[in-house]
């Protein structure tokens, strides 16, 4: 952690020069490392990257996302995944290998408008992202409220080692499922807790760049000072 240098950058800013490896949101121009977005630059172990503060969701393999069914074709469902690409969930993934379009009806399992927690199985930009629900805790979401936040704020909502989300969940007794695409499903048996949890998620989205956010969220939720201090640190 000691040798990570952080800086605010906007597109076109030269982060560093020399033989470094350009990673996320960095392009190389000769020996200059140039930021391609508004964000915070980091240099570590000869690599340069920029953590974006804004921008669209670009699917990555193995991302947990929340999608909404927008249509079906004979062999797959189509999902809105808050990205410029449409997510595809093959029918075989749900019905098993003996799926037959003549026998099975896709809409009986997942209908248009349903929310689904899924994982990105494959995405290589030449084709639209392929989704899968074959894992624990994946599949149709039956209860909960959908909250949409900016995809670039998702890491902040999770917090260091999940500290932020734990704080909210513990204070409100809500269940929060966070999709990497910026869609968050909040469910809670108690309606007051639900409203508070939604408010907290929205607050993180709006104030993601401010210091002491965990403290602010805690005071909004009415968590007494000093609780969980070992895991919550900005």
């Amino acid at each position, binding site marked *: 952690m000691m040798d990570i240098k952080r800086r605010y950058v*906007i*597109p076109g800013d*030269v982060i560093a020069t020399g033989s470094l490896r350009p990673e996320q949101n960095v392009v190389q121009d000769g020996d200059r490392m*140039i930021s391609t*977005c508004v964000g915070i630059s980091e240099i570590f172990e000869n690599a340069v990257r920029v953590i974006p503060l*804004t921008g*669209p969701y670009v699917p990555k393999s193995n991302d947990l996302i929340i999608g909404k069914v927008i249509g079906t074709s004979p062999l797959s469902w189509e999902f809105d995944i808050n990205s*410029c*690409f449409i997510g595809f969930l093959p029918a075989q993934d749900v019905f098993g290998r003996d799926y037959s379009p003549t026998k099975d009806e896709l809409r009986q399992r997942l209908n248009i408008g349903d929310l689904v927690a899924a994982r990105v199985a494959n995405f290589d930009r030449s084709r639209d992202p392929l989704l899968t629900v074959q894992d624990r805790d994946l599949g149709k979401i039956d209860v909960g409220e959908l909250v949409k936040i900016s995809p670039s704020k998702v890491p902040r909502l999770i917090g260091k080692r999940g500290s932020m989300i734990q704080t909210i969940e513990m204070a409100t007794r809500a269940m929060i499922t966070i999709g990497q695409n910026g869609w968050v499903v909040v469910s809670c048996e108690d309606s007051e807790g639900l409203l508070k949890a939604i408010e907290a998620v929205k607050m993180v989205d709006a104030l993601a760049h*401010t210091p002491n956010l965990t403290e602010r969220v805690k005071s909004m939720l009415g968590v007494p000072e000093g609780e969980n201090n070992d895991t919550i640190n900005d």
Partner: protein
Amino acid sequence: MTEDGIRCDGRRVDQLRNISIKVGVLKNANGSAYIEFGKNKILAGVFGPRDVHPKHMADQDTGILRCRYHMSPFSVTERKNPAPSRREIEISKVLKEALQPALILKDFPRTVVDVFVEVLQADGGSRCAALDAAAVALADAGIPMRDMVSACAAGKVADRIVLDVNNEEDQEGQADMPVAIMPNMGKVTLMQLDGILTPEEYKTCLQTAIAGCRTVYEVQRRALVEKYFESGAH
């Protein structure tokens, strides 16, 4: 212009008009900016990357950029017909070509980034101001960019090379040269010239315009920093 080089609006020959930029003014756009460049008032909104319609325009290898420059009927003294004029079609094309080299759309194949520019009040040099606002709006939308794009005009009025020609000077003047650069890469992305200049004058005019662009870049930078980092944590 007076003998000691004071212009019709009180500026010196190498002085820009007042510029102010506000980022993120439109809620429904992915990125937006509002610029006041002297008496020019211009709004830019960026949508995307998103699906291309009509579909035949889509490129399988890369994302595409579309620009629309439009002047409101009330932006000039005599009502302007809201239908796109020859001039607006030209400026839309020029804006697109000036922004294109800065954008990296390879990561978003089969999609489009739409830039809408609406001139609310025009006072000469609106294409440069539009470009400045569009570049900031693109950065606000988080579209990957190699560099910002900063634009400014220079021209020849009363036999002298002046920076940032306003409407009155444009009407009376001998030449007008809008220039856009990528300030960190030092590359010119737009250069037009309306009027006649000697080779010597041409060089001075270009240098003057580039110096103006660099000042504009600082304003753009400040606007982005203000939105994203001013109350910043780190």
